[in-house]
């Protein structure tokens, strides 16, 4: 029972790390980015190639995965995404689905369609008992890393100059521009960091999330759920939503494997219908 809770939290933490970048693009920049999972997949494959083909240590591959996804994210933002900021949601949807299809096919072409596993170092395998609760070492690592990321993110958003610029740009773009903040650059950087975090999450969670070319489509709905249920007014909303989703999903798969997906989608619809602003949002949007 507690083990399920633990696994669920690990899963939820992963979802959060991947989806928090999406919370910014979707919620703050009002951009429907269905391709967010593609960046997570790229990070995952980057780590896979490094660890399994070149024998790089697992921990060393994580920052590389982050940088790789972030660079590609920045490149995509500056060359492609930037044309779509003022377009309709439909055009954004078409464009990002197109990106997803293309990345899936490219990954399929170079790395094959089967599921890939990253060779974990021996000290991350297995589990130990902690007061009767079985704790997987790998999942413990995920929780620790993700918690660290969460704290760092909170500190950056709350206490740095960049954080206050981002919050200003999000609250009111026009006034932020008027105050001399380079909103485009703030958004581009945020987008890149969001993609980087997605890549890091993808690398970290390759074992749990099953890395294969159709990863972005499979998890697209999960990331969207996290963002739409959690709302976008803070980091805590998506965080709570992803923990809930993680626990719900793991528990659902464990106790009622036949109805797991069904329950989650239904809950999502109900939440969206009752509270279009998100479960934890504080009221009005712009």
């Amino acid at each position, binding site marked *: 029972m507690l083990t399920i809770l633990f696994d669920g939290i690990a899963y939820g933490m992963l979802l959060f790390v991947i989806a928090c970048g999406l919370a910014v693009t*979707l919620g703050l920049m009002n951009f*429907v980015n269905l391709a967010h999972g593609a960046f997570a997949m790229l990070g995952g494959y980057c780590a896979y190639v490094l660890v399994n083909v070149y024998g790089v240590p697992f921990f060393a591959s994580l920052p590389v995965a982050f940088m790789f996804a972030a660079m590609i994210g920045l490149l995509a933002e500056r060359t*492609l995404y930037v*044309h*779509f900021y003022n*377009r*309709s*949601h*439909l*055009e*954004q*949807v*078409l*464009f990002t*689905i*197109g*990106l*997803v*299809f*293309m*990345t*899936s*096919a*490219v990954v*399929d*072409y170079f790395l094959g*369609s089967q599921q890939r596993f990253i060779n974990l170092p021996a000290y991350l395998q297995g589990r130990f008992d902690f007061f009767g609760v079985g704790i997987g070492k790998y999942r413990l690592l995920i929780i620790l890393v993700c918690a660290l990321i969460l704290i760092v993110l909170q500190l950056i958003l709350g206490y740095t100059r960049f954080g206050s610029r981002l919050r200003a740009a999000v609250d009111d773009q026009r006034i932020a521009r008027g105050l001399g903040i380079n909103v485009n650059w703030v958004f581009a950087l945020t987008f890149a960091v969001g993609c980087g975090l997605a890549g890091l999450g993808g690398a970290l969670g390759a074992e749990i999330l099953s890395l294969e070319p159709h990863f972005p*489509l499979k998890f697209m*709905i999960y990331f*969207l759920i996290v963002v*739409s249920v959690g709302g976008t007014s803070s980091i805590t909303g998506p965080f709570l939503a992803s923990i809930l989703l993680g626990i719900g999903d793991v528990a659902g798969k464990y106790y009622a494997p*036949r*109805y797991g*997906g*069904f329950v989650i*989608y*239904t809950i*999502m*619809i109900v939440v*969206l*219908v009752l509270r*279009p602003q998100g479960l934890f949002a504080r009221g009005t949007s712009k």
Partner: protein
Amino acid sequence: MNTGNTVQDSVTALKKKRAWHWLEYVFWLAAAASVFLLPSQHALLTQIAIWSLFALSLDLLLGYAGIVSLGHAAYFGFGAYVAALFAINFTGEPITGLIVAGIAAGLLGLATSLLVLRGTDLTRLMVTLGIALVMYEIANQMSWLTGGADGLTGMPVNPVLGIFPIYFRPANSYAYVLIVCFVLFFVAKRIVHSPFGYSLRAIKGNPLRASSIGIPNNLRLIAVYTIAASYAGIAGALLAQTTPVVSLTYIDFQRSADVLLMLIIGGTGYLYGGVVGSALFLVAQKFIGNITPQYWEFWIGFALVVIALFARDRGVFSIFERILGALRNDKAKP
């Protein structure tokens, strides 16, 4: 100039728009001729016709009412399953099956429209996607009824109205699909050029103004959503009747995405966008799919990105227009 004249003028203008364009006559005559002239391509043509009908139903939503849907396959698949189950349990007469499937899918659309019509574009996207996913899960889990992942087989297809056999007769079944499509296109054309159709476009243009001139926005949107769902259900039933198995692919995300892509390729808001789009899409799929079956996905993605970048609501035509425009500019410069 008095007001009577202007009203008269606009009425004549509207009537003119409602009348059939000569290209439409040409198109339908060509379609009828293809039954006799292209016997080797009937399988492909049947696919094109069915996808066109499906895309038409999405066009009613997207092109006329401005409702974005990422889960339109929910109604397509539901119609297909209903038609198959009806044929297995009651009668295999195709027209009855179509009507039942249309009514059932319409009722599902009516019920779900209440969920879809709240909130913004983004919420609608998520909710339609969610509905399709739930329908997929239901079809997957109720395997005692739907066959689950194995699909539903053994559906009897009797002669149409008891006299016109279509089972395993490609020419006849293509003719049957074409006639159904023609009737439904005819009805759709009447719908979009009725006052109802114009009120939809008003809502799409500006919901606030539409409601302040007295259009009951929500009722109109519910109505068009129901009609579109019903159309999608009939398209699904047609596919079920012309292919031997109804499976989960009838209802999956790929189908919702494909139909959206076809409609966008062809352009929204003039009913025939789906025909152009599905014809281009399926023919391209046949050719590119023959060369690199695995990486067809890449080219769909590429097409989507290019269309999203350059085309607005006229699909491929706006790309042609842009190229033409660019050529003209080049000529004008020196």
